[in-house]
C-alpha cells in the first residue's frame, strides 16, 4: 500500500521506466514483501526473505528521505508483537541508519530482558544525543544485568551527565552494578569521576578492588588524553602505592612516564 510520498514517487518512476522499455524498479515491491515477512520472522526461517531490506538500506546511503522512511518502518515493527528474531534484525538495521526519530521505539525495549541488549546495540552506536538520554533515563528504572548493560553503554558513550547517578551506584548492593558504574566513571574520565573513583578505590571491598583500580587507571588515561596531566598524574601516584598489586603499580608508573613525556 502507499505509505509515504517516496513510495508513490518510486512506483510512478517504475511505471515510467516500464513504459520506456527500461527495467522496472521492482525493489520497492520487494521491500514491502520483506517487511511483511518481517512481521513473523523467526530463527530458522530463510534469512534471504529480509535481504531486500538489507539492500534498500545500503542503497539509501546519501538519500536522507529514503533512510528516514526505512528507519520509520523498522521502528514500527518494534511496537508490534513480532518475534524476538524480527526485533533483533530491526535493531541491527537501526544501528546503521537510526536517528533521533528511532529512539522512542528503541527506548521502549530497554527494560526488556530479552531485547535490552539489541536496543542498546542500536542506541549505543547512534550519535544522537537523544539516544544517550534514553539510556540515561532508563538506568534508574531497570535492574540486575539489564542495568549493567545500560551502564556499560553509558560508559562507552562517556556520558558525563550520568556522573552523579553512577557515583551513587558505587554503593549499590549489586556488585556487578558497582563494578559497571566504576568502569563507566573511568571511561567518562572527568575530574568529578576521578574524585569519586579515588574515594571508592580506598574503601572498595576486596572483591571489587581490581575493578576499582582498573577504573581509576582508565580515568587517569582519559584525563591524560584530554590534556589534564596534573589530574592524571595524581591518580598514577595514588596507584603506585605499595598496597596495589604489582601489575597495577607498574601500569601506574608507566602512566606517570607518559604524563611526563617519557616512555
Amino acid at each position: 500500500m502507499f505509505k509515504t510520498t517516496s513510495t508513490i514517487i518510486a512506483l510512478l518512476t517504475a511505471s515510467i521506466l516500464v513504459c520506456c522499455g527500461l527495467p522496472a524498479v521492482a525493489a520497492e515491491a520487494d521491500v514491502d514483501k520483506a517487511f511483511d515477512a518481517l512481521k513473523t520472522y523467526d530463527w530458522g526461517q530463510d534469512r534471504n526473505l529480509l535481504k531486500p531490506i538489507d539492500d534498500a538500506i545500503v542503497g539509501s546511503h546519501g538519500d536522507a528521505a529514503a533512510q528516514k522512511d526505512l528507519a520509520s518502518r523498522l521502528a514500527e515493527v518494534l511496537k508490534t508483537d513480532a518475534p524476538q528474531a524480527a526485533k533483533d534484525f530491526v535493531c541491527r538495521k537501526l544501528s546503521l541508519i537510526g536517528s533521533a526519530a528511532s529512539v522512542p521505539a528503541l527506548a521502549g525495549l530497554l527494560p526488556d530482558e530479552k531485547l535490552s541488549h539489541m536496543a542498546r546495540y542500536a542506541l549505543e552506536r547512534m550519535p544522537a544525543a537523544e539516544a544517550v538520554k534514553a539510556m540515561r533515563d532508563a538506568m534508574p528504572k531497570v535492574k540486575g544485568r539489564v542495568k549493567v548493560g545500560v551502564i556499560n553503554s553509558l560508559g562507552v558513550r562517556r556520558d558525563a551527565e550520568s556522573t552523579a547517578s553512577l557515583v551513587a551506584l558505587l554503593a549499590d548492593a549489586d556488585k556487578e552494578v558497582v563494578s559497571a558504574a566504576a568502569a563507566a566513571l573511568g571511561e567518562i574520565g572527568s575530574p568529578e569521576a576521578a574524585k569519586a573513583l579515588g574515594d571508592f578505590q580506598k574503601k572498595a571491598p576486596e572483591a571489587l578492588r581490581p575493578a576499582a583500580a582498573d577504573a581509576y587507571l582508565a580515568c587517569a588515561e582519559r584525563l591524560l588524553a584530554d590534556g589534564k596531566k596534573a589530574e592524571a598524574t595524581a591518580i598514577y601516584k595514588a596507584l603506585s602505592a605499595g598496597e596495589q598489586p604489582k601489575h597495577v603499580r607498574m601500569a601506574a608508573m608507566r602512566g606517570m612516564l607518559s604524563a611526563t613525556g617519557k616512555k
Partner: protein
Amino acid sequence: MSCKPTRLTRRRFLKTTGVAAAVPYVITSAALGGEDRPPASERIVMAGIGMGGRGRGDLGAFLGHKEVQVVAVCDVRKGAQNAAKNMVDKRYGNQDCAVCTDFREVVARDDIDAIVTAAPDHWHALLSIAAMKSGKDVFCEKPLSLTIKEGRAMVDTARSYGRIFSCGSQRVLGDYGRLAREVQSGKLGQIHKCFADPGGPPRPCNLPGQPIPDDIDWDLWLGPAPWAPYHPFRCSAAYGLGGRGFRTWRDYSGGMMTDWGGHKFGGAMFALGLDHTGPVEIIPPDGKDHKWLMYKFECGIEMYVGGGGPRYEAAKGNVPGLTWEPPKKLLERNYRGHGGLPGDFLYCVKTRELPFRDVEYAHRVATVCHLGNIAYELKRPLKWDPVKEEFPGDDQANRMTWRPMRQPWRL
C-alpha cells in the same frame, strides 16, 4: 579440579612471606627443577583458554618448551576441557592440571604468568584484556579481534599494563617469509600492486534453535555476542564459510577475510613494511570497474583481494603517486628464541621485548580485514584515516567500528 588455586604454591608462599621464612620449608624436587626442567622460579606458568582443536595445537607447542609449566586449562565445553587436561597431565606425568569453564577463574590466579587463547574470535578481546589487566602476558590466535575498536583496546591495554602480547599467524614468516624478504630487499623492484585473497566475509546467522547439550555452557560461549538460540553449527569449529561453524557467522567472526586475512594480509603488509599503518581508501567490487575489493595505501600501493597471493607486481615505469620503497630495515625483523612464534613469545616474556607478531601489527592487519568486511557490507567506496582510525565524515561506517556488548560484558 577447579582452576581456583587449592594449594599454596611456592611462588605464592615466597610472595606472601618473603624470602626469610620463619619456619622450615621443604623444597620439592619439582620446585628445584631438574635436568630437563628449569627451577620453578624460572618457569613461565601458563594457562590455556579456549582449548578446541586449534587451542590444543597451540598448547602442545608451549608444552614442548621446558621453561613452560601449564597449570590450568579452560573451555566452555567439557570435552575440550578434558582433552586439554589429559594433554597436560600426560606431559608432566601427574593429574595436577586444573580445569574450569569460566576464564575468570584463570584470570583471578596470580600464579599464572601468561595465557594462550584460541577461543572463538568474538572472545579474543575480552579474554585478552582481562588477562592483561590481571598482570598476564597473552598469546592469542589470529584474527586478533572482531572489531576495529576491540583491537585498539587490546593494544592500549598491552601498552598501559606493559604486557607482552603476541598474536598468531605463523604463516607470515613461515609460509610467506621468503618472498617477503625479496620484497624487502628490493630484489623485486618498486612494488605497485599486491594480491592476497583470504576468502570471503561472514554472513548473518539465522539457524533454528536446538536443545542445549550438557557439554556446553551456551550463555558463556555466546558471551558478548547477541543472544541467539543454540545450534551446533553456530559454535562448531568447522572450517570455512559453509555454514557449519562459527567462522561463517558475522556475530562471532570476520569470516575467511579475518581468518586467512591474518595470514595473507599479514604476510603482504609485513613484506611491504605497511603493518604499522593502514589503507586510506577501500573500494569494494562493483561488477563494473572493480573486479576485486581493493585497498589503497598512502604510499600508492594497491592491495587486491583476489589472485591468490600474497604476490607482488612491480611498477612498470613511473607511477604517479607511488612513493613506496623497499623496507630494507625489516630484513632484521625475525623470531627470537627457539620454536617459531611460541618460542618468540616466550623469549619476549623473559626479555620484555616486543614479539614478532606484536599486538600493534596484529591490530593493523585485523583492521584491514574489518575494513574490507565493512566495505563488502556497505557496498560503496570508503575513505579511512589510519592515524585517527576512523572513516572521515562517514557516520554510518564509523558505527560499524565496534559492536555494543551483551550484558554484563564490556571491554
